[in-house]
């Protein structure tokens, strides 16, 4: 039967399974993220691997279809991978029991706070600031920006992903006794406008709109705000805090704010250089790929560092050992792309700080580097 | 009964021959502005072949549709008389209590359960099913259908499939369609389909058999065959038949009584001879040439 993989015989390549959405509902951001993972591994292997051992990616498209993710997961287990890189909420949820049972560390781009407790989900690792922390940071920032009192409307995707930080935000306001009004609005997918929701937000008196959704709908909200001449500032969390939002919203993006744990290409963080050089050597550029590429790159980097820890200590590379290494090896430096990532046996939350940016002249300019809730 | 040794009676009506089986009274049916039937009244006697004739669009099919519950007339009633006992019942029918049912107020499947069976003008068979399945569907109201035994092919579900098959085989034999038993009806030649449709109605063990143009589209030879089957059912099994037919030769030869519709109204009602010399009928339906 399939148990934790061994990573092949000593000295051989170490296999990692990757579930990517390259053609499904979230392929727009899934593609650069997946390319980042692959780019990192190519770069790593080209530079001697981990003490001479290569990483071998088993990377397949699961088209955001849970059943396909489960099939691929079985395939990876069968192919003796030592860890899994997943992607969205759906596959992360569907596999969290299985990875615990098969003892395979699992990282994904789903940053729900429900995944950071090792008691519940012992093999899930959340590399970036959780959605809830991002929300907390956003609310703190709003409270400060508004000078205390204000009204906040939360526009969220109608799914577990979208709802993930909503309740925690409310709790945060109560706990920190912020003087913020707070209401949430579901964003139906496929809408041509969010004028009705904005109208409700307006009657709420909202001055800030926190968006937990991907870029295209967020850009529509930005355009609607501009067209309606509303006096509202958008605060995007993670998945709409990217170049795409700026590109799609155009002029309407200016002045809005983004909470983004990963440094954008123009930030000059030293950790971006390797990625940029690697892409240039392949005839691309980091500007063109955008920050989700970096996100994939460093998510993979953190996992690779765990493996390096094992290899350097001469420990066999297995799932359980990797879990232990990730918990014990101390902080991973990302060259300023994120705060150092550190897990422990008590918490699988890698980071709790995030950058805050403002859009001005079509660029992300930093407002705060390491905001923590 | 029927000359060959059939065990199952095909006629389920226990109304004694000569008494009224069906009493159509004042039926009026409108579609939007069109009056398809206009205050139509007549009686059908048990044991008769009762023909309904009339020009195209006169409302003949609509009348049958009213009787089988497919159309709901705005006014009027159609009273079917039944006597207790049913097909296999014993005892003298004269003594049995009479019940009446107003067909125009009933759902089609209830009417069928009373033994009113029919065929359709444009062949409405279950095209993808075999002849056998079509005929077995004629037995539907005489069977009990329970879910779990059906799923398990167990007990009553299995037993009744075999029991009812016997009567169906008799009908197959009567209509001489043995060879095509397992053929999907959609693949059958027209004449066979017409026969299967008659068979499906017979499997219901009808108290009243409604036939809508059973011989349309047949040549003389085939009509003879079909006439023979209808006569067998009528003469030998004693089934009362209501028949719509455009071939006057057939109507004259096999019916006991004829009702004539024109523009939805009953313009004549009587024996074939009376009707065929009725001036209104000649004018509206037969034409001069044929009346001779």
């Amino acid at each position, binding site marked *: 039967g399939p148990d934790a993989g061994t990573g092949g015989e000593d000295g051989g390549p170490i296999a990692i399974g990757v579930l990517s959405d390259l053609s499904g509902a979230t392929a727009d951001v899934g593609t650069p993220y997946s390319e980042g993972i692959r780019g990192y591994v190519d770069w790593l292997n080209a530079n001697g691997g981990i003490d001479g051992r290569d990483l071998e990616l088993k990377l397949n498209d699961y088209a955001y279809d849970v059943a396909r993710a489960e099939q691929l997961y079985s395939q990876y287990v069968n192919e003796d991978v030592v860890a899994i890189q997943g992607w969205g909420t759906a596959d992360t949820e569907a596999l969290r029991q299985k990875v615990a049972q098969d003892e395979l560390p699992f990282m994904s781009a789903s940053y729900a706070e429900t995944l950071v407790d090792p008691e519940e989900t012992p093999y899930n690792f959340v590399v970036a600031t959780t959605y809830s922390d991002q929300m907390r940071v956003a609310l703190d920032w709003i409270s400060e920006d508004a000078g205390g009192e204000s009204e906040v409307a939360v526009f969220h995707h109608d799914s577990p992903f979208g709802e993930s930080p909503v309740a925690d935000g409310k709790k945060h306001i109560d706990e920190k006794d912020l003087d913020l009004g707070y209401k949430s609005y579901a964003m139906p997918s496929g809408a041509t406008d969010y004028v009705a929701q904005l109208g409700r937000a307006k009657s709420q008196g909202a001055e800030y709109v926190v968006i937990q959704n991907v870029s295209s709908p967020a850009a529509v909200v930005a355009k609607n705000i501009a067209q309606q001449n509303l006096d509202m500032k958008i605060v995007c969390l993670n998945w709409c805090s990217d170049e795409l939002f700026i590109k799609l919203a155009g002029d309407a993006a200016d002045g809005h704010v983004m909470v983004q744990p990963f440094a954008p290409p123009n930030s000059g963080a030293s950790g971006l250089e390797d990625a940029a050089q690697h892409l240039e050597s392949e005839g691309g550029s980091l500007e063109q790929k955008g920050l989700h590429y970096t996100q994939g790159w460093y998510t993979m980097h953190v996992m690779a560092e765990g493996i390096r820890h094992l290899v350097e200590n001469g420990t066999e590379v297995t799932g359980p050992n990797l879990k232990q290494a990730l918990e014990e090896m101390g902080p991973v430096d990302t060259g300023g792309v994120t705060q150092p990532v550190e897990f422990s046996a008590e918490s699988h939350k890698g980071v709790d700080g995030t950058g805050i940016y403002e859009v001005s002249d079509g660029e992300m300019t930093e407002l705060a580097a390491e905001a923590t809730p | 009964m029927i000359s060959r040794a059939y065990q199952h009676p095909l006629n389920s009506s226990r109304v004694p021959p000569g008494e009224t089986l069906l009493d159509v009274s004042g039926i009026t049916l409108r*579609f939007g502005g*069109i009056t398809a039937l206009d205050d139509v009244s007549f009686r059908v006697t048990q044991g008769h072949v009762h023909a309904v*004739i*009339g*020009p*195209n*669009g*006169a409302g003949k099919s609509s009348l049958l549709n009213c009787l089988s519950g497919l159309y709901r007339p705005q006014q009027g009633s159609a009273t079917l008389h039944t006597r207790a006992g049913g097909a296999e019942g014993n005892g003298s029918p004269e003594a049995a209590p009479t019940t009446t049912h107003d067909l125009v107020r009933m759902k089609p499947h209830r009417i069928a359960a009373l033994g009113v069976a029919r065929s359709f*003008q*444009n062949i409405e068979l279950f095209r993808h099913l075999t002849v056998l399945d079509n005929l077995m569907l004629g037995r539907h109201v005489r069977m009990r259908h329970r879910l779990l035994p059906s799923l398990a092919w167990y007990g009553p579900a299995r037993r009744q499939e075999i029991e009812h098959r016997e009567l169906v085989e008799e009908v197959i034999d009567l209509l001489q369609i043995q060879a095509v038993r397992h053929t999907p009806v959609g693949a059958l*030649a*027209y*004449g*066979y389909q017409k026969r299967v449709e008659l068979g499906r109605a017979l499997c219901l063990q009808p108290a009243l058999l409604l036939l809508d*143009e059973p011989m*349309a*589209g*047949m*040549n*003389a*030879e*085939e*009509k*003879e*065959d079909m*006439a*023979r089957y209808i*006569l*067998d059912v009528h003469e030998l099994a004693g089934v009362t038949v209501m028949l719509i037919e*455009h*071939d*006057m*030769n*057939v109507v004259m*030869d*096999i019916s006991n009584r004829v009702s004539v519709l024109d523009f939805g109204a009953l313009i004549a009602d009587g024996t074939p001879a009376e009707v065929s010399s009725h001036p209104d009928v000649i004018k*509206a*339906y*037969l*034409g001069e*040439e*044929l009346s001779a």
Partner: protein
Amino acid sequence: MTSSTVDTQRAAGDPGAVPGRSLLAINNIEVIYDEVILVLRGLSLEVPTGSIVALLGSNGAGKSTTLKAASGLLPTEHGEITDGSITFDGADITHIDAAERVKRGISLCMEGRHVFEHLTVQENLIAGAYTKGRPSKSDLELVYEYFPRLRDLRSRTAGFLSGGEQQMLAIGRALMAKPTLLMLDEPSLGLAPLLVQEIFGYIERLNAELGTTVFVVEQNASRALAIAHHGYIMEQGRIVLEGSATELRDNPDVKEFYLGLGEEGSRKSYRDVKHYKRRKRWL
């Protein structure tokens, strides 16, 4: 096959067509449905210009299939002509498109009417003139003149007409294309006696007045042979008997099986037919 004698006084409508010459010729065709069911087995017949030809046969003999082969409808039913040829007005049309055949002058009035149920009567007629562009008032008037009842019904939805009315509409629609050859599949099916009489009257008139060649498939053999010049009888995919209408009417087998007449020539009563009736086939 003997060339039939046709009354050449009847003028042909189409100036190109020579009266008496065969307008439609079916040569030895074989038709297969679904790649397995062989329905026509080497069937040949001819329809001379300006004539009325009747095709008789029992159910399932392949009459409708013959008409479908001639009008190019077989492909829509998974049927195909695997052997033989069909010529129309001298040109080979065995494999050309159905719509193209209408343009060349062949119209079929299908069995079972097939009116456009959701269109009004008038729209049905307009659709009938599709190959001629927008129909002129006079074309419509011509049809209304032949079938006055249609005029009253012109804005009614065709699907709700009675059978007879639909049959008139179907013939009227076929006429709108001004065919040289009108093929009718069981035009009397389900019609009241008076109407049958009328419809056959119209067919005769069409032939006489407009010079339309008519090829008619009928079960009502006595009617068909009464107006036809020539007739064919088919069984199981082959022509088994052929001759002028008068010859056929006098043939004892035709009398018995198609005209329902007894040996002595008088009509048998349907009551007298017995179970063990002799079944004769011409095979």
